């Protein structure tokens, strides 16, 4: 850690960032707060409603259902992507020409626009024309993600694993490549097992990057919108309607500004609270 000097003039250096981000964050946020406490019947006439929308959202079964779906989705993909990403990073070559090839190919899904990801998986998984759909049905399973909730969940999760595991791999790989060879030599001399090398050398070195990976995957999967929207449209029924999809349905579809704004704030606060917990844990780790 660099020991920092106190210098209030440093504010001038951060000023452009503060102005730009504040323009994008504070004004819209104020708009949202404003809507969240008012009722409108059109024509720009608004009535103050206090916390009515908040109470309504917090007690609505629809919100509970979306939140539950969202939490399950985020939980499942974290449980799959983090261990899988670490396992692949451990198995990757450490040096040589294959490293670049692996990294470039693995980073590819990260750079595909999200709606293209959704569209790609749609035509990949459709039972009549898609390779995956044909394969699964060929194996004797009855699979149609546009009709069956379970198949829709399976496809959405598989798509997310396809899309984002590479981020965990890249981060874990970066953590691993910062371990000096001497550590491994020492472990070999001591006759350490592969498990204890992992437990006492590799895992501690990956701790920081893994916290970042989990934080990023948590935040982004909690905000997921475009990919499942293009893939399943939130269906069949409402079975894959996650928080963002539900929110956009209310705000832009039904134009219920008040409830949508209240839901936005609750949604944002949930992410903020959970991220704050992650962030504090992370900073505590770094200070050690």
């Amino acid at each position, binding site marked *: 850690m660099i*020991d*920092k*000097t*106190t210098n*209030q*003039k*440093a504010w001038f*250096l*951060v000023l*452009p960032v503060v102005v*730009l*981000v504040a323009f*994008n964050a504070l004004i*819209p946020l104020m*708009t949202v707060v404003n809507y969240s406490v008012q009722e409108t019947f059109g024509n720009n006439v608004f009535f103050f409603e206090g916390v009515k929308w908040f109470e309504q959202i917090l007690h609505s079964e629809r919100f509970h259902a979306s939140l539950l779906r969202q939490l399950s989705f985020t939980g499942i993909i974290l449980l799959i992507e983090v261990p899988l990403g670490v396992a*692949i990073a451990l*198995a*990757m*070559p450490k040096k040589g020409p294959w*490293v670049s090839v692996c*990294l*470039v*190919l*693995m*980073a*590819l*899904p*990260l*750079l*595909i*626009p*999200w*709606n*293209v990801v959704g*569209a790609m998986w749609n*035509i*990949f998984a459709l039972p009549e*024309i898609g*390779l*995956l759909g044909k394969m699964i049905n060929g194996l004797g399973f009855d699979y149609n993600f546009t009709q069956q909730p379970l198949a829709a969940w399976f496809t959405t999760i598989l798509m997310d694993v*396809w899309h984002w595991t590479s981020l965990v*791999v*890249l981060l874990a790989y*970066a*953590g691993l*490549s910062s371990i000096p060879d001497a550590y491994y030599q020492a472990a070999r001399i001591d006759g350490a097992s592969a498990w204890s090398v992992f437990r006492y050398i590799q895992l501690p070195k990956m701790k920081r*990057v893994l916290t*970042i990976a989990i934080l*990023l995957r948590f*935040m982004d999967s909690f*905000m997921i*919108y*475009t990919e499942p929207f293009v893939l399943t449209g939130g269906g069949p029924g409402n079975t894959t309607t996650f928080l*963002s999809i539900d929110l*956009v349905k209310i705000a832009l579809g039904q134009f219920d500004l008040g409830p949508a704004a209240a839901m*936005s704030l609750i949604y*944002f606060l949930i992410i*903020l609270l959970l991220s*704050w917990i992650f*962030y504090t844990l992370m900073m505590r780790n770094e200070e050690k």
Partner: protein
Amino acid sequence: MKNTKWLAPTIYILFLLLPIYWLVSMSFKTTNEILGSFSLWPQEFTLNNYITIFTDPTWYNGYFNSLTYVMMNTLLSVSVALPAAYAFSRYRFLGDKHLFFWLLTNRMAPPAVFALPFFQLYSAVGLFDTPIAVALAHCLFNIPLAVWILEGFMSGVPKELDETAYVDGYSFVHFFIKIFIPTIAAGIGVVMFFCFMFSWVELLLAKTLTSVVAKPIAATMTRTASTSGYELGLLAAAGTLTIIPGAFVIYFVRHHIAKGFALGRV
């Protein structure tokens, strides 16, 4: 054990490439072939889908629009994030920790929350349907990310570098441009990669803030798909073309990416 180690990454990469292969293979098929029969590779190989895209301005303009706002956003984010990250890595000032966390909270804001207010805000200031609106809106998540990564890189540069330069009579601006920026060039490359990536892949805001003139390619795709029924071949070709800029960018940063991840924080 040692000889089978390559198996896991290989299977993983094949899994990654399979849907992409399917997309590319569909882009060379006619829509009739896609819907009419099932084949692992194109039976009647056609380039018509690509010809349509390259000759129809609504299609190719989409690419220009997307690339325009992505590049504007990348340059803007990096240039304002550089001094800010320097301040965070070198100095203690009033409210620095709170400010840093506040910046990060914007990375956590779901774009769905901001879609409607952004539409109203950018309409009010007369920037609606311009690439500038999208470039500015994407700053919401790209600037915090850029500051976060750059701060990590800069903290890795010993402070003696700054002090020596000041003793040698460099001014702050001169030192920053001539010495400091070249020192963290790899970090800047990584940051640009991430800014490009997150701006290129985002659609919700880009679509909300544009209608005709500045419509991004991703939005062109969704609208074409819905108006003229299932033009699957065309959709696949357009999708394939959106992968190319990304692949290009990764190729350039391939040597720095692992190192960048290790030093920075992403």
